Each structure stands twice: as structure tokens, then as C-alpha cells.
């Protein structure tokens, strides 16, 4: 049940470019990514492969991003898969499979080239099988201390390179939700299943769906706020299991703590709201009634699960709590005010700001405005050419279309075509009240409802 892709690290939409002079790769072949991985794994010369998901073409490569004279380039047609052993900077087990590029010993001495026999003669002959290359640290004789090398110091024949084991290389804080290390085995030593595969275990944590959880390859992660990083296993009999990862000695200082309001999803909200929006008191975190749960305060030291306060220990949409009502397990605390997330207004405008001629050129979120005459990142429908009298200078905020919500601009953020600016109405600036006149109403096609269904529904 182990996927051959488990030996590879995937870089999405990426191409590995080599210099033309280098040895051209073999012609692409058709097949699935897993078939391609099997082919590359079976070839000592192969260290990576390009996979084109659309055409299902696979091209084996004799190099990785750490090889000389190569560069990575964005390319939406390809995913680049590279053998983990060539990329990892830590070792698994005794490091026999380590193929990284570390070339200095633990005391900082430079390694002697494996080809060379001076200053130290030796019997190791570099070959694709033993992976001896350049002067990189290797473990050709299964030394328990891990990869080592002969040194260029005549007085010191060889020395360990001190490359850490992966479980000790990157430590985790709190519950390991931010852990992005390279451990890919569970506590019992079982290999993890890739997050981008649905076998042997089907699961909801697709990497595309959770881009913020770092669900890379088959590394241990904590996408659901469990106690520690874990993974689905390649053992069909065992769905998931925790991983052994070192806890950092220092606990991180909580950042951006808020009490009177919450920012983003409210993970750093430390206020005292303890009632749900519908008025139901929250259940205390240190009790299991009326609702049993696994968010025990002592298991989540960084989440401040005090009393029965609204908290967001698992990255939900907003602070929430278990309710004291048996029929309602969980409720959000949406009634807690959101912290303002807009820049302080630098200037003010009268009316709708149609005559504003100031120099503010940032949106209320702090994004730089796109020059009115520019065509990227947004092709403007309003420009100096279409509105010559609107004073559309440089990238200053303006209101050429008499937008009732004030000056605005196209933005330099490709995902945000336009937005309003960090300018507010001047005090005393009056705009006709909405209550002063009401219009006749005329509608065309929308808003129709099949009333027959409604009667049947009731």
C-alpha cells in the first residue's frame, strides 16, 4: 500500500531548468505520477522528474534543485518531484540514504573529495549506487553516528558531519500546528501516507483545500488541532497515528493578543466573552459535561482555555465554545466585535469625494493603488482617456464615477480589482439622507418564487 511517490518531494507548478550544455534528459513517457515515480526510483541515475498532469507525460531528470547550474522556474504545466534523500537536510535512521549536499564536518572542517586519495587514501570508490559524490557527507559503511567524510586536514582522517535526525532537526511549539519539518514516520515507525493521495486511507485534508496547513508530501502535520502532529499511515489497518517530534524548549510568546475584539479567525483572542450569540452560557473547557471533548486546557497550553471563555483552539471561522445546552454542542461567538482592520484615514472628503484632489494613494487595507493610466494588473474601465475631467493623476484616489462610498482606486493586488481608500468623510460634510425621498419600484425577472411549493412545504 506504500506509494512510490512517498520517496519524492513535490513542488507544484515548477520546472527545473538546466543549462543547455548539460546532458539532455531522456524523452518524456506517458503514465501516471505513481508509475513515473516507480521508474525514477528504479533508476540510480534518476533524481527527479517533471510530471505534466494534463498530458500525463513524465520526464525523468538526472539532477535536483541542489545540482550545479540549475534553477527552478514557475510553470503551471509541470509538477516537479525530487527524491527526498537529495533534498532533506536531516537524516532518517543512520543516514545511509542521505544524499544531501553538506560538505563540512561537525567541527567545521572541509570534506575531502571522494575521488581524491589525498590527504587520506581510502578504499571507497564513488558510484551511483553508494551515492559518493563530490565531497558531500555520506554514510557508505552504516556508521551509527551518521554521515561522515574524510577531512582535508592531514591530521584528522575522518569526522562525523553531525547531521541531525529529522525528528530532532526541527522542533515543534505548542501543539505543532506550525510544524513544517521533514519527519514522515509515526511513533511506531510506520511510514506516513501522502496528503495528496486518497489511499490506503480516504481523508478530507486535501492540500489544495488547506493551503495554510502545509500539507506537503507525507510529512507529519497537525491540520485539525490534535494534540501533536500526526499522519495517515501506509498501513491499511491503522488509519492515523501521532509522530514523535521534539518539543522546542522555549514556548513562543503569543502574538497579537486581543481582548475587546478579535482579528482574523480569533485564534489570539483572549477576552472574557463566555456566552454564545443566542444567549446560551458556554461550557467550561475543563469539564466534560454536557459535551465530551478533547480540548483539555493542559493539553493545549498555548490556547488559554480558561474558564468558559470563547476561544478558537482549532482554526475555526471565529472564537467558539461548547455550550451548556445538551442539544447545542458548539456555537460561534460572532457577537464579539471584529477589530478594525483598516488604515487610519489620512485625509477627509466632502460629499461623495467627487471633487477630492488629494494625494492619498493607498486603499483602506494599505494596498498601493494602480496608476490610472496603467493596464496591469487590472485593465481599467475608467481611465484618464475615458474621464479626462476627473483629474485621474498618477495613482491618487479619486471618485470619477461618483461612487456614493467615496474615493477609490484600482489596486496593485491582482486579486482585488478596486477598493476604497484610507480617506473618510469630513465632519460636518452632509449628504442627503436616505429618508428624504423614496422611489417607485420596478422589477423585471428575479425575485420570483414558486408559491405552489411553499404551500405544499407548509
Amino acid at each position, binding site marked *: 500500500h506504500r506509494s512510490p511517490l512517498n520517496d519524492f518531494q513535490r513542488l507544484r507548478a515548477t520546472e527545473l531548468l538546466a543549462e543547455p550544455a548539460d546532458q539532455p534528459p531522456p524523452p518524456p513517457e506517458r503514465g501516471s505520477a505513481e508509475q513515473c515515480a516507480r521508474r525514477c526510483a528504479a533508476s540510480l541515475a534518476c533524481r527527479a522528474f517533471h510530471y505534466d498532469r494534463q498530458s500525463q507525460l513524465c520526464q525523468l531528470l538526472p539532477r535536483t534543485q541542489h545540482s550545479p547550474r540549475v534553477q527552478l522556474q514557475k510553470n503551471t504545466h509541470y509538477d516537479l518531484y525530487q527524491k527526498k534523500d537529495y533534498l532533506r537536510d536531516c537524516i532518517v535512521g543512520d543516514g545511509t540514504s542521505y544524499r544531501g549536499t553538506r560538505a563540512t564536518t561537525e567541527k567545521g572542517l572541509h570534506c575531502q573529495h571522494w575521488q581524491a586519495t589525498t590527504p587520506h587514501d581510502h578504499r571507497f570508490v564513488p558510484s551511483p549506487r553508494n551515492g559518493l559524490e563530490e565531497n558531500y557527507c555520506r554514510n557508505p559503511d552504516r556508521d551509527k553516528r551518521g554521515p561522515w567524510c574524510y577531512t582535508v586536514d592531514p591530521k584528522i582522517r575522518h569526522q562525523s558531519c553531525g547531521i541531525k535526525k529529522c525528528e530532532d532537526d526541527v522542533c515543534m511549539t505548542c501543539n505543532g500546528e506550525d510544524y513544517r519539518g521533514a519527519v514522515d514516520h509515526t511513533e511506531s515507525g510506520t511510514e506516513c501516507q501522502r496528503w495528496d493521495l486518497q489511499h490506503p486511507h480516504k481523508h*478530507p485534508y*486535501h492540500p*489544495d*483545500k*488547506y*493551503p*495554510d496547513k502545509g500539507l506537503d508530501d507525507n510529512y507529519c502535520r497537525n491540520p485539525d488541532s490534535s494534540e501533536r502532529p500526526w499522519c495517515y499511515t501506509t498501513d491499511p489497518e491503522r488509519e492515523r497515528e501521532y509522530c514523535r517530534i521534539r518539543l522546542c524548549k522555549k514556548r513562543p510568546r503569543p502574538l497579537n493578543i486581543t481582548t475587546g475584539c478579535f482579528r*482574523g*479567525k480569533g485564534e489570539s483572542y483572549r477576552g472574557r466573552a463566555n456566552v*454564545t*450569540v*443566542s*444567549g446560551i452560557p458556554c461550557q467550561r473547557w475543563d469539564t466534560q459535561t454536557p459535551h465530551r471533548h478533547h480540548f483539555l486546557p493542559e493539553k493545549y497550553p498555548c490556547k488559554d482555555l480558561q474558564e468558559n471563555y470563547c476561544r478558537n483552539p482549532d482554526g*475555526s*471561522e*471565529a472564537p467558539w465554545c461548547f455550550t451548556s445546552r445538551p*442539544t*447545542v454542542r458548539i*456555537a*460561534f461567538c*460572532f*457577537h464579539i466585535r*471584529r477589530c478594525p*482592520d*483598516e488604515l487610519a484615514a489620512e485625509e477627509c472628503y466632502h460629499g461623495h469625494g467627487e471633487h477630492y484632489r488629494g494625494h492619498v494613494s493607498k486603499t*483602506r*487595507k494599505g494596498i498601493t493603488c494602480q496608476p490610472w493610466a496603467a493596464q496591469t494588473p487590472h485593465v481599467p*474601465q475608467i481611465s484618464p482617456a475615458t474621464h479626462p475631467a476627473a483629474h485621474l493623476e498618477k495613482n491618487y484616489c479619486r471618485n470619477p*464615477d461618483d*461612487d*456614493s*462610498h*467615496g474615493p477609490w482606486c484600482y489596486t496593485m*493586488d491582482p*486579486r*482585488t*480589482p*478596486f*477598493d*476604497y481608500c484610507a480617506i473618510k468623510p469630513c465632519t460636518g460634510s452632509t449628504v442627503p*439622507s*436616505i*429618508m428624504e425621498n*423614496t*422611489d417607485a*419600484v*420596478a*422589477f423585471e425577472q*428575479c*425575485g*420570483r*418564487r*414558486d408559491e405552489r*411549493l*411553499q404551500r405544499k*412545504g*407548509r
Partner: protein
Amino acid sequence: IVGGQPGNSPWTVSIRNRVGAHFCGGSLVKEQWVISTRQCFSSCDADMAGYEVQLGTLFKDPGPEDPDQQTIPIVRIVCGPSESQLVMLKLARPAALNRRVALICLPPERYVVPEGTICEIAGWGETRGTSDGSVLNVARLPVLSHSECNLALRGRLKESELCTAPLRAGVGACEGDYGGPLACLTADCWVLEGVITPSRVCARTDQPALFIRVSLYVDWIQKVMKM
């Protein structure tokens, strides 16, 4: 919805988070656009990967064989003017309109709903035991005049807010309804006049309920869809 009853509201959509759970409501104003409230979303440039809208079904958690159900990913969130508390959600593809899925009209700019107009709120939120929480619930509320409401709220009512009168039976929106519609029947057409936003307490019997006044932001809504 507290104090409501199972009903049909073909423009009301359920917004689902990454584990597929309903957490807020919305209204279909264009085949590829839903309007909801800012309070339901973590930020104006949130990565919406994994978030979806569900429409075309009366059930909060329909079975796989529900024929008319549509589930469409959300690809972008656009925040409204600062005071509006509104967001527009762009869908990955247009919703298919049918007898279970319909657009709701937008009012003319700055249109004021006449006092006493009967409007309807709809959602899959908390019912507090007053109805079947597994299906869409609707409830009817009469519009309260701006002046009367401002009086009841001791002068703190904004122009961007719209009120409905409190009912002695305790009828109103609640947890899980936020972002959903206050739809009013005007000239034989259902019009999105208000958007449900979180309040301190659900279905109060002694205070008006507040909604975002959509007519004040129709120009922004049209501009977003046009841009």
C-alpha cells in the same frame, strides 16, 4: 431562525467551511455572486480554498441523493464599504437556476422600505427548539419605521441599518443565520432589503432587530459584479 417554520427561500444559500459544516447564510444576487456579512469571514483577503456554498435544497445536511442540490466553491471574497459589514462572494461557476434556485432582486439605490411591509428572514441557523433545525426555516417580520426604531435604540440607529418590529412570540434570526436575507415582497417581487447580522441576543421580544440596509450599497454591489 427562532419562532419560524420550515419554508422555501430559493435565493438563500448555506455557506460551508472546509470541513463541510454550515456556518453562515447568504443570498444569491447573481448566478455567480452571493452577498453575506463580513462578520462570518476572517478577512477581506481570506484564502477561500475549501469554502463552498450549498443551494437548491431545503435540508441543512442533505443526503447524496438530493436531486436539486448544488455545491459550488467560493473563489473570491470582496469586502464592502467600511460601514457596510457586507461581503460579496464570487462562485467558481454560475449557479443553475431552477424551481429550487432563484436570484433575488436588488432594490433601487437608496430605496426605503415602507413601514409595515412584511418581510421574511430565512436560514439554517439555531431554532432554539421552536422548529425543525435540519431544514430551512423562514419567519415573517414587519418593517419598523426609521424614526420609531431610532427612538427605541436611543438615537444609535445608523442610516445603513434597517429595523423590523419585535414580535411578542419571539421571532428572529440567530446563530448560523448571519449573512442571510431579509426579503420583502414588493410589487409581486421578492427584494433583498436587508442582510442578517449578529446581535447580542436572538429573537428579542422587547427590541427591534437590525439588518444591513442593502439599498445603500446597491451601487457598490453592481460595481463589484461589473469590475
